């Protein structure tokens, strides 16, 4: 068994899991954080995207043992009890999701972008979301939502 202790959404968590457990399985099966989705499980679809040490990565492509001591942020770490995160609110306002399966991954990718680049161009947003496959809504409304969330996070617009 592999013992891991890591920070998830600001809270220290520990688990003992078989060595072949992926970070995604660790999050979903050990900690019941099921917001990160299991889609392709080979790093193509982005539904499992989480932020590790500040960077968006595919949780299906890391082993649990590799995240021992690291800092992980999942979709569950964005909203507070009072309020959704501005990116989540923008996705709601712009109706950027239909089935929503890709949503957590897309929103985490958008957060990864805006954390590093508060004023991205449309091309930069497309690049940031190119590792997240959406097969029902399409990307136009997502890009609009990310642009709107960026304006709110920059303080140029009041939150809805």
């Amino acid at each position: 068994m592999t013992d891991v202790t890591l920070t998830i959404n600001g809270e220290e968590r520990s688990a003992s899991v078989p060595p072949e457990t992926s970070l995604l399985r660790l999050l979903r099966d050990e900690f019941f954080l099921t917001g990160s989705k299991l889609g392709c499980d080979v790093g193509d679809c982005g539904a499992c995207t989480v932020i590790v040490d500040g960077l968006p990565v595919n949780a299906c492509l890391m082993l649990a043992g590799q995240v021992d001591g690291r800092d992980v942020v999942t979709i569950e770490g964005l909203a507070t009890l009072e309020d959704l995160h501005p990116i989540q609110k923008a996705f709601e306002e712009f109706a950027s999701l239909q089935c929503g399966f890709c949503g957590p991954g897309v929103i985490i990718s958008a957060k990864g972008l805006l954390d590093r680049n508060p004023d991205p161009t449309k091309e930069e947003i497309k690049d940031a979301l190119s590792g997240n496959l959406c097969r029902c809504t399409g990307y136009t409304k997502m890009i609009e939502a990310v642009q709107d969330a960026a304006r709110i996070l920059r303080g140029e617009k009041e939150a809805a």
Partner: protein
Amino acid sequence: MRAFDFVSAESADQAISLLSEHGPNVIVLAGGTDILVDLKHAKHDPDVVVDITRAEDLKGIEVNDGGLRIGALVTHTQIMDDPYIRENFPALVHAAHTIGAVQTRNLGTLGGNLVTCVPSMDSGPALMALEAEVTVAGPDGTRRMGLEEFFVGPRKTVLEHNEVLLDVIIPRKNLGKPADFLKFGLRKGQALALVNAASALWVGEGNTFKDVKISLGAVAPTVIRAAAAEDFLEGREITPENMAEAGRLAVEDAKPIDDFRASASYRRDLIAVLTKRTLDNAYRLAQGG
């Protein structure tokens, strides 16, 4: 995933010890973007996985007496963000940017891309055109070699089970050498190259090709140099006609195959076009953009 044991190395030396101790049925895990997929789909069934992502001595980008040293664990994102590489080697930045997507570029490493050694790798051509060398370390010490020697065949390098790739070095003579990389895939994001190509050159006296190096990917069992095209250009005047002729000769240097992504015939056309365009772009870069 099948069951295996997991151990983590804090340095290259420790990785080599662990690999020797647990070998030969061991596998090195770095960014994991290829290895995790292989582990899940049982191409690999190792007894032990040696994680090297905590080996600090395999990280870092620096210019030293030998040239530009890029640690094997440097990620594609770190290459794209490095100020020195952005200034001096836009071809490397462009090549890194064409790999996968943000998530896989944050995980995937330069060393991993070279060691996995798929013919369509996007890190290979620009480095080979810049005559990059690699350092391999094992129980008996280290050895240096060019990429042509390091790549053996599809998914096969010279690495033994208890050896690791330490770093990639672009020799000092090539620091700032104008170079260009182009990839043709079927989509902008997350696509493998049907063909990729890179050229590096200096402009010699009388506007001639000097030390021109051309490299091609996805058109042979490994990334290759286009020797006939290089020989033709050396010392000749830099003209669009000569670039086009080099493109035609580069097709002869390659052995493209038919597969589900493209026909060999389509790949031959791409080789000629991409070779010519990378030469043209490298020349423009030499002229100051």
